[in-house]
């Protein structure tokens, strides 16, 4: 029995290693998803949010898109889709994302600086439902 206990301890140790990796891994790679309104409200309540990587789903404000094809600097404003009020500028360095357009819904990942500028590392365009939704589509 003594021996078996030793093996249980070995198993527990291994489980502990995996558990440790999971806990630390989660801490470092969790990304919160906010709407622009939520993000701004959070960052006012708790300034440490400015350090955090977040994902934000918003709408590209028409007339604000500026893109330099030579330097690949992209700037545009996003606005809260639901309220249509909270908005902030986004800066991104890279080629214009496919199907990126004014008025489109996008998800930007990055962080909101304390100056109120969102430094994006990725900009994804939402292309609605890519599959199915056939019926509405065909009947429309």
């Amino acid at each position, binding site marked *: 029995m003594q*021996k*078996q206990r*030793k*093996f249980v301890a*070995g*198993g527990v140790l*291994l*489980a502990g*290693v*995996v558990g440790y*990796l*999971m806990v*630390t*891994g*989660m801490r*470092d*790679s*969790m*990304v*919160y*998803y*906010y709407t622009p309104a939520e993000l701004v409200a959070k960052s006012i309540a708790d300034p440490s949010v400015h350090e955090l990587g977040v*994902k934000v789903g918003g709408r590209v404000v028409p007339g604000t898109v500026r893109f330099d*094809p*030579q*330097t*690949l600097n992209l700037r545009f404003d996003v606005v809260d889709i639901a309220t249509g009020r909270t908005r902030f500028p986004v800066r991104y360095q*890279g*080629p*214009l994302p*496919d*199907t990126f357009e004014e008025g489109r819904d996008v998800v930007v990942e990055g962080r909101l600086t304390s100056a109120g500028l969102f430094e994006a590392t990725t900009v994804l365009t939402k*292309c609605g*439902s*890519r*599959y*199915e*939704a*056939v*019926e509405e*589509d*065909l*009947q429309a």
Partner: protein
Amino acid sequence: MTGIGEVALWIALLVSAWGMAMAFVGGRVDRGDLVLAGERSILAVFGLLVVSSGAIIAAFLGNEYRYNYVAGYSNRELSVFYKVTGLWAGQTGSLVFWALLLALFSSLVVLQNRQRNREFMPYVAGTLLGVLLFFLVVIVAASNPFKLLDFTPLDGRGLNPQLQNYWMTIHPPTLYLGFTAFTIPFAFAVSALLSGRLDTRWITTTRRWTLLAWFFLTNGIIFGMMWAYVELGWGGWWFWDPVENASVLPWLTGTAFLHSVMIQEKRGMLKMWNVLLILGTFLLSIFATFLTRSGLIESVHSFAQNLTIAWIFLGFLSFLILLSAGLVWWRRDRLQSDNQLESFVSREAAFIGNNLLFIGAMFAILWGTMFPLISEGITGQKISVGPPFFDRVNVPIGLLLLALLGIGPVIAWRKATARNLRRNLAVPVGVSLTVGAILWVTGVRHVYALLTFALGAFVLATIVTEFWKGTRARARIEGENAALALVHMVQRNRRRYGGYIVHVGLVVGFMGFAGKAFYVERQAAIRPGESIEVRSPFGHGYRLTYQDMSAYPATNMTKLIASVRVERDGVRVGTLTAEKRSYRQREEVASEVGIRRAWNEDLYLILAGIDNPNGVLDGTNRQPLATFRVLVNPLVPWIWAGGFIMAVGTLIALWSTSEPGRRGPPAQARQPAASRPRRPELVEA
């Protein structure tokens, strides 16, 4: 004509319900005629599903857009090729396809076991029909491929351009074959639990099915990686996408099972563990199907959300979990080990370590995949868990597994002596340290990559030693030359040596993964005539010169193709093209990448952006500024080579002589390990 397909589905549903009842009752009251009726129901269901699937394909080929499904995944322009694959292009069809493959495998089991395994067959047939019944219920209740639109559109919506790739014919079917084939060992396990016949027979008799399922699942996953690599245009092959993760979960438990059954066969241990593993593997296959079909989690594969399907699947999964747990609890007395673990330094312990690591990886991936859903459900806060989490957890686990991969095959059963370890590990450890030192000297400082190569060398050295020792011994005893001795040795024990070859493939694949640590990326916006230069980690200098941009307008899409001249170390080696396609109808843009493959590294070219594309189309923009991303992906070809080696190894193991008659007497006649001759590798048949 195609209406017959829907009728066939309904009949199949009734037949499977009836057959399931017959098989279970027949098994309970010991009536062979009822059992036979159950088994024949399986054949009938297969026939009906062939009719139904044929009707779906016929509807695609006949452009019958009054069917919602056909209208959603096809149009008149679609090539015949993709009309046939329409069977599994979308949710409803793919469920029929799933059921079809399961019915095919189930029929093979019935035909295979007309004489054998009669004591298992009643509940095996009943279980298989139960699973078929479930899928048929889902299909007719929530996902009918023959659902009609209330009008007939002139044309369909067409197939998602990213699915219009030849991998479409290969990747999904292979993966489904893997998922469905795991139902066979599951059914035998349930039958063994119900009938109480819990010796190793249910395992040995399904060994080839398990391996076959593993073979398909492994290849399905690798094919998916190849597809993602050429199609998604991100320069990677694995994204920790929820659906990718879901396919790996049953692979991990299935792989654990393939190893742990050896302990039960040799030492009569881990009986309950093995039952749990195969039940879990099947549950995870169903879970993977559920995750994809329900569309609950966003993914590159995402199908539309279908909550009806989600609830039916959740109900079925809960039922299966309760059933499995109940059966195992009921039979817990018969699942006791015959032996106990004796030492940490033994093959049993190495196998158990391997199993715990596989299960640990499985839980970690499951957690990371489900966390966003759980978090949103409980706190209402959307949180995503990105690739860093999965890498962070799985890379160390992978390295530990790699270490065990080297130790496992050479360490003795029961309790290894210091002499056993010294004799078998001295050379491999030396090789490993040498490789590590050489890489260090040549400037490799990436810890995980160094460990991967050093441990990989260790594993390869142990395997080569095993082959070498076995061949030499056989050559001496049988008086054969080395080549003949090698062939005969592998032939005599295909399962073992096939397994080693799978390990070699895995090591090569792992080294390919490690290559990711050294990838190089450059991005620049340039005009025709200008160049981008990159230096690869192998020291090659690539110079890519943008030559021109051509436009190909067509009715449904416009292609813009950039052609780029490639020079390597100053020598012209060819031209790469990279495209951007805009699909009008679907408002989608897809990229086609250009890849130059060499044995050690891929040059990967992405056309990331074009300034004023409309000007290119109407001819006013003659020198279009284009943004290119150039990547050098070192060792990616090794991943595919590793996958190929694994497939070869699995096929060798699959060929193994699994009929009890040919394999020699089963477990009870085996000698206890202690009284075995000193060189067990020569006598284990």
